Every structure is written in C-alpha cells, then in structure tokens.
C-alpha cells in the first residue's frame, strides 16, 4: 500500500516538527487558568460570534462564486479565461494589508466604485459587510485554485458521456461535476474558511475595528497582545479550536460514501444521486 520511498519519512519528520514545535510551545505558554474568564468576557464572545457569523457568510459567498468560477477556468478553452487563472491567485500572494488597501481604493468612500455607492447613500466601510468582503477577497482563491486543479486532473470524460446521453449542461453540472468534485469542494471550502477565520490585515485596513461590528477574533487577539501577550495566546487557542472543528466536519463530509464519485465510475450511470 505504501508506494513512496522510505527516505520521505525524514523530511516528513522535519516538516512536522517545523510546524508542530511552535504550536506546542504556544500551548505550553498559554495561561490555561485564565481561559474560562477570558471566554466569559463580552469582548471575547463578541469577537468569536462575529468571526463565526462573518466566516460562514464568507464561506457561502465563496461556494456560490467559487465553484462556477473554478469550473469555467478548468473547462473553458478561451485564451483570456486562462489569464483569469493567474489573476485568481493574485490575492493569495498579496500582503493582507495591501489587499485591504486595494479594497479601499475600489470600494472605499473615495474609491472607484465606492464613491458612486456613497452617492447612493451606501457606505461599506466600518460595517460587518466590509469584513465579509475582505474575507471573501482573500479566501475565494483558495477554493478556486484547489477545485480547479481537481477538476482539471479529473478530466471531462464523465461530463462528455453525460452530455452525449442527452443531459443538459446544468444537469451535467449538478449530477456529474459536483459529485465528482465533492471532496475537492469540501477541502477547498475548509481552506477558504480557515483563511477567512485567520483574516487580519485586509479587515483592519478596509473595515476597521469595533467590538461587535468589525472586530473579529484575530483583531481582538492582536489588540489583546498590546496589553497581555499571554492572554492573546489563550484566545488564539480558541481560534485554532474553531478551525480544527471545521476541518473535522469537512473531512467527515467529504468522505461520506454517498458523495463519492466511484459509483459513477463503476456503472457509468447518472442515477445514483
């Protein structure tokens, strides 16, 4: 079953240690006895609630926009669409603060689009909507890139067969593409959620920071660090816990047999869903 060279275990161990040691050190420093009081404080609860609300909103936006976006990039043969593939990765390499500045010059009060919105009485800055926009901007590429790669390597054979059998493009999408890509959609969504949950720089620059409205967990952690860095570590544990719960759920979802593609592969039919 193990089809990989034995030597791979060495870099595996180094890599794991590289990632795990700082996190373990962090857990060792956390003042656990203060955690309950911290979690009971209004500020932490507001931050946690806001983070959950905005991250779920972001995740829905990411799914609605990202899945069709990845599909078009993976399947279209138009040249300019291929350029879009590069464009999608740009927010991944942008420093978060720059992402925030980009949003500000686009949607800010004096921005390209924002100045027109402002004339209509719509101000995005300093609202929870701004937080969701910032999170979506940085998180969307994670779903698109991972899903696009999966769709590309899966190929379009089943879609072609389904189309030949007379299925409409939308029917092919819902009954062939989505089930085949389900594991990639689930893992891409988890990545996007995690990126949104950790989002900091773009939110701070574009949305501001006010308890209950725009101050998400990472912003609260950063502020807490100003007065007590140990408490900031304790609140980070909450952030990590939320992320692990989400990953566990998405791993479970993506490995549910009913969502798996093999049944299509085995009988070639479209009836299993």
């Amino acid at each position, binding site marked *: 079953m193990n089809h990989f060279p034995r030597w791979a275990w060495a870099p595996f161990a180094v890599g794991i240690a590289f990632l795990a040691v700082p996190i373990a050190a962090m857990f060792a420093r956390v003042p656990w006895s203060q955690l309950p009081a911290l979690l009971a404080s209004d500020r932490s609860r507001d931050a946690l609630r806001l983070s959950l609300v905005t991250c779920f909103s972001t995740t829905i936006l990411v799914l609605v926009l990202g899945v069709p976006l990845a599909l078009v990039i993976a399947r279209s043969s138009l040249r300019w669409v291929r350029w879009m593939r590069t464009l999608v990765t740009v927010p991944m390499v942008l420093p978060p603060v720059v992402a925030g500045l980009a949003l500000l010059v686009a949607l800010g009060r004096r921005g390209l689009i924002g100045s027109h919105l402002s004339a209509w009485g719509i101000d995005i800055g300093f609202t929870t909507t701004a937080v969701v926009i910032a999170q979506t901007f940085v998180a969307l590429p994670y779903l698109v890139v991972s899903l696009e790669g999966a769709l590309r390597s899966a190929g379009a054979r089943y879609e072609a067969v389904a189309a030949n059998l007379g299925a409409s493009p939308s029917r092919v999408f819902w009954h062939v593409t989505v089930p085949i890509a389900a594991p990639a959609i689930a893992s891409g969504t*988890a990545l996007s959620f995690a990126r949104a949950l950790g989002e900091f720089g773009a939110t701070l620059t574009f949305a501001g920071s006010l308890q209950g409205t725009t101050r998400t967990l990472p912003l609260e952690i950063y502020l807490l660090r100003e007065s007590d860095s140990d408490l900031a570590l304790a609140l980070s544990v909450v952030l990590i816990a939320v992320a692990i719960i989400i990953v566990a759920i998405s791993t479970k979802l993506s490995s549910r047999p009913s969502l798996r593609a093999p049944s299509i592969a085995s009988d070639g039919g479209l009836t299993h869903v």
Partner: protein
Amino acid sequence: MTASVKKSLTAFTLAALLTAPLAACSSDNSTAPESNPTTAATDTTAATDTSTDSTNNDAANAPSTAGAVVFAAASLSEVFPLIASDVDYSFDGSSGLVDQLKGGAPADVFASADKANMDKAVEAGVIDGDPVMFATNYLVLVTPADNPAGVTGFDSSLDGKRLVVCAAEVPCGAATNRLAEAQNVTLRPVSEESSVTDVLGKVTSGEADAGIVYVTDATRAGKDVTTIDIAGAQDDPNTYWLAKVTGAPHPDAADAFIAAITGPGAKTLSTFGFGPAE
C-alpha cells in the same frame, strides 16, 4: 490509520494558515509610516539634514554611536535616523518591542512611545539603569484636507460623524480616553484601531470624517489633513522614554546614542513636532 494521519496533517496546515497572517502583521506597523510619504514630511527632512550634519561635526569628539542596535517605537522611524545614521534600527509598536526584548532579542537601546511600555520592560528586567524621558507628544484632531463633514472641534460637531480613534489598549487610545474624560466629551467612534498609523490612514483616505492622532502624525501627513487643536491636550502629553538594555552587546555605543538623542537630537525632534522632555 491513513485517514487519521491525513486529518491531523490538515489540522497542522490549517494552524499554519491561521497564524501566518497574524505573524506578518507585527512587522506591518514599522513599514506603514515609510510607505506613506508626504510632501510635507519630505520638506522637513530636507530642512533638517543640514542642521544635523553640523551638530554631528560639533560632536565629533563624542564617543561613537556606530554599531548600536536600537529598538524604537514606530513613530520615531523618520526622526531617529536623522539624529544618528550609523545605528541599526528596528522600528515596531512599543509593546511588540517589549515582547521581543523579553524573548532575548540582542538590543542595546530601547525607545518607548509611552511610559507604560517602558515600565513593562523595566518590570521584565530587560532595562539597565533608569529610563530617561526625551520627548513629548500630544493629541490633535485631524480631518481629511477638505473636512467634508464640517468638524469644528473636539465637541458636539463630532456627533454622528465617522470618528476613528486608537483602541484603549494602545498608548494613543489610553490618552484619547483620558482626554475625553477630562473634557467631558463622549466619543462614539466607528472604529478603534490598534495603531495610530491606522487611524491616520483612515482619515487621509477619506474613509473617516475625523480621527484623533498625535501632533507628530499630523505633521507627517502635512497637506493631506486639516489639524484642529484639542483644548487641554498639551496639559497631559504622552511621554517618550529611552533606556539601555540589560546586557547590551555594545554598551559604549548605547551610551553615546542616548547622549545624542537627549542632547543635540532635541532640535531635530522638535522639527518633527515632538515637544521637549519635561
């Protein structure tokens, strides 16, 4: 077996994803002021260049500051290199610098933008000797240059306007709250930023109608903002402190640097809007 390995691997990757943006942010503070140059700031720089040159010549016999490693508050990032250029600087938020010193960072001098963070450093045992106050700074109200919301002062003209201030956890926020209490003004900010640079950014971009920043920030922003004095702000200024770090690798250069800032450096500090030490 493989499934559980896979699951925990994903968890590690996620943890890394989550913490990376946070780590990157601590350095943002130090780079932000430099990325926001204004004509006014450049003008002052040019004007002071000659004066510092001459003071350096006068002090030619003084011990050299060369090689000193200075950890200084971000608000000093433009003025300090003009006073001593042969020094290795690390500019960041004062509290972040205290964290680094506690972690054993090899620095010679620590310059804090407020008393609270210098006290924290002294308490942590990373300071050698008594800190000295070398400058003061006070709060002002700034609006975008054209003052679109018609803010007239630190009063009811701020009601219903998009006011941005520093959060209470950071020095400028603590000072803002003290001032509001002293003037009997209730502030309803739309955002409480974690650094004064972020407050200034929200105002210069026009996103906010008004912000409360230090007079040095207003000086730096120059024509991008309209500055309105706040009555009573100068009576309760923020204080800047300088001290040698315990076990400084270059103790002589550290002493020379402290002497340069508290001595001839005072003139350069004042051109940037800093007030004299009390």
